[in-house]
């Protein structure tokens, strides 16, 4: 996938594609009404996803990434939820569908793998029945056929000794094995779109590697579309065609994954990538931490939600919310979107940074003192303007 992505930039979900996309989400809002007020978890997200493509959704806890995935699948059930907008899947509007019709889509068209493989399996039912029950009710298979399908599925997700495992209870299996079972269940009815919501967060790094490889292989072999929701930029890198970065319920940046990592335009994406310790750095490398913390979803600041923490912040950012627009002067072309008035790597961004540094704005000073990026960003402005688009801003990370 990554190689394909590199050779054909601009064919991502953002670009206008031939025919109708598999999934089109338009201005989706989801709120939860709680005693303290309205938690605006998703605030106007639009995206499209073509058949067989993979999309990564990256964000911190509270950024709305899980609620977005659940809203698309209509899994946010309860009296205090309100969802508005449009979710079109294979030409049907999912938000208008009666719940019964929606249930027919779960598993067969849309499936989800959840974060915690223990709580998403029934602890008192043997694994075999959890797999076959699903195959039988959705595909109308006989008991024998279903059993065979279940064994095939377990082999496919590379569970050793598949036949014997059908008799196991979830607690008899390790976390990685349970997640393999969950994936087998999700794949059983050949969904067109698989959501993987933090599928590896609860797992060890070696097991995470295996599970991500398994998902990648299945996605490729089945030509299935996949949305991979994660907080870890390392998980989406190289494993998705396109990536969306969410912050405070909004998409702040969206681009083909490779482009996103090399030419970050939104200050939040940039800051997130810089703040992560990397194996490639020497030990005791000072991290450029993001100051402050994510906003309270009940009380999101006006303007750009990242403005209180942003090293590039200007007065305009505190007043007007920036729209998600193409910043495509780089390799991403029109498919690279960012919601920022002063995008990273542009003259406007460099000027804003230099102004803030001159004013000794704390979050700007922190960034400047923490990295080699400081000198280039602060000192130069005009000199680097021409060379900047290609490489400079991403290169320091």
């Amino acid at each position, binding site marked *: 996938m990554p190689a394909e992505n590199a050779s054909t930039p601009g064919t991502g979900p953002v670009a206008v594609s031939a025919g109708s996309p598999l999934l089109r989400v338009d201005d989706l809002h989801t709120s939860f009404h709680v005693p303290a007020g309205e938690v605006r978890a998703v605030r106007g997200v639009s995206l499209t996803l073509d058949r067989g493509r993979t999309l990564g959704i990256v964000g911190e806890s509270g950024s709305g990434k899980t609620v977005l995935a659940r809203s698309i699948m209509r899994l946010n059930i309860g009296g205090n939820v309100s969802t508005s907008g449009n979710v079109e899947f294979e030409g049907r509007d999912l938000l208008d569908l009666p719940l019964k019709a929606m249930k027919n889509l779960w598993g067969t068209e849309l499936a989800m793998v959840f974060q915690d493989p223990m709580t998403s399996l029934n602890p008192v039912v043997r694994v075999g029945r959890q797999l076959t029950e699903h195959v039988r009710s959705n595909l109308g298979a006989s008991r024998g056929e279903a059993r065979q399908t279940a064994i095939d599925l377990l082999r496919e997700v590379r569970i050793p000794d598949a036949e014997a495992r059908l008799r196991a209870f979830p607690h008899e299996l390790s976390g990685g094995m349970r997640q393999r079972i969950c994936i087998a269940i999700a794949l059983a009815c050949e969904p067109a779109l698989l959501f993987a919501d933090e599928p590896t967060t609860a797992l060890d790094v*070696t097991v995470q590697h295996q599970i991500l490889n398994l998902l990648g292989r299945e996605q490729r072999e089945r030509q299935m579309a996949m949305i991979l929701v994660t907080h870890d930029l390392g998980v989406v890198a190289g494993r998705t065609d396109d990536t969306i970065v969410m912050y405070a319920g909004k998409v702040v940046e969206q681009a083909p994954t490779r482009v996103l990592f090399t030419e970050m335009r939104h200050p939040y994406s940039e800051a997130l990538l810089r703040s992560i310790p990397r194996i490639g750095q020497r*030990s005791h490398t000072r991290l450029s931490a*993001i100051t402050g913390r994510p906003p309270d979803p009940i009380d999101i600041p006006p303007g750009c939600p990242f403005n209180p923490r942003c090293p590039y912040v200007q007065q305009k950012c505190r007043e007007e919310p920036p729209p998600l627009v193409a910043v495509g002067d780089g390799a991403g072309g029109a498919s690279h979107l960012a919601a920022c008035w002063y995008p990273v790597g542009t003259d406007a961004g460099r000027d804003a940074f230099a102004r803030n540094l001159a004013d000794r704005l704390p979050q700007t000073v922190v960034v400047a003192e923490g990295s080699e990026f400081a000198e280039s960003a602060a000192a130069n402005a005009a000199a680097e303007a021409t060379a900047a688009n290609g490489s400079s801003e991403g290169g320091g990370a």
Partner: protein
Amino acid sequence: MAGTGKAHLRRPEEVLLRVEDLVVEYPAPGRKVVHAVSGISFDVKAGETLGLVGESGCGKTTTGKAILQLLPVTSGSVVLDGTDLTKLSERKMRRARTDLQMIFQDPISSLNPRRTIGDIVAEPLQVWGPHSEVEQVRMVDEMLEAVGIDPVQARGRRPHEFSGGQCQRISIARSLVLGPRLLICDEPVSALDMSVQAQILNLLGDLKADYNLTLVFIAHDLAVIKNVSDRVAVMYLGKLCEVAGADDLYDHPAHPYTGVLLNANPEPDPDAPLDLESDQAVEMPSPINPPSGCRFRTRCPNAAEKCAAEEPMMRSVGDDHFVACHFPTL
């Protein structure tokens, strides 16, 4: 892996903490025994940060708690500055704990939700600190300030009014208020948001310098461990695999397990090579019935007969680089 052996230990007079042949076993149903930690030895110099890394179930948290004598140690010694903590009476150990503190993974559940931040941070002082209340308040404020919490605002509030990152700062303040010499950090950032992790890691680095601390830093995240550590020890199933300087270990991993871990670490780099076929479902064996010889042999790509028959001993493969493997990859 792992094996036993003490080739990697430095001279006792050079180090602040020296753990030798530490064994922690728990009873399991059916008269079985869980071999959580099986004879590991390591040491930490004053002012050094030792990173302990490994997968869940490898015994790294048990090791941390065993240093503090928070759980019964089956055998072995934990020597802090010449005193063997395993031999101390309960009363003397209470005293000794002022020198040893721990911060835990979940910052919110490690603070009492019904007490105010001022009380939480002052409690160690009420037990061991100065009697003067004025002095106690002064020390609490100073400590809160040092961890980046405004004491005036925070003192009267309760933990639920703070975010995870702030609660972790408060736990750090509580652990440092008595001026400990050794701080054990058990996964202190794994429950925090990505953007807050870096703040806490930087804070720990600053405090280490300001307060002359020695750290044992336990984590599963290889990149975090590399960032904070001077020396890293890789654990697997209750044994040590490899001990080396942080940069050296990551540049030249000598144990196959270290290689496996490094290979699995997701790097935020879209150009990192990916092999979707490398997906054998390998499981960590049960610590109730660990493999003979080298404990890693069931997952090791280089395993040979010798590995089942004979336990590898820790040996030097370079300058301050030690590995317990019959066939090191270096």
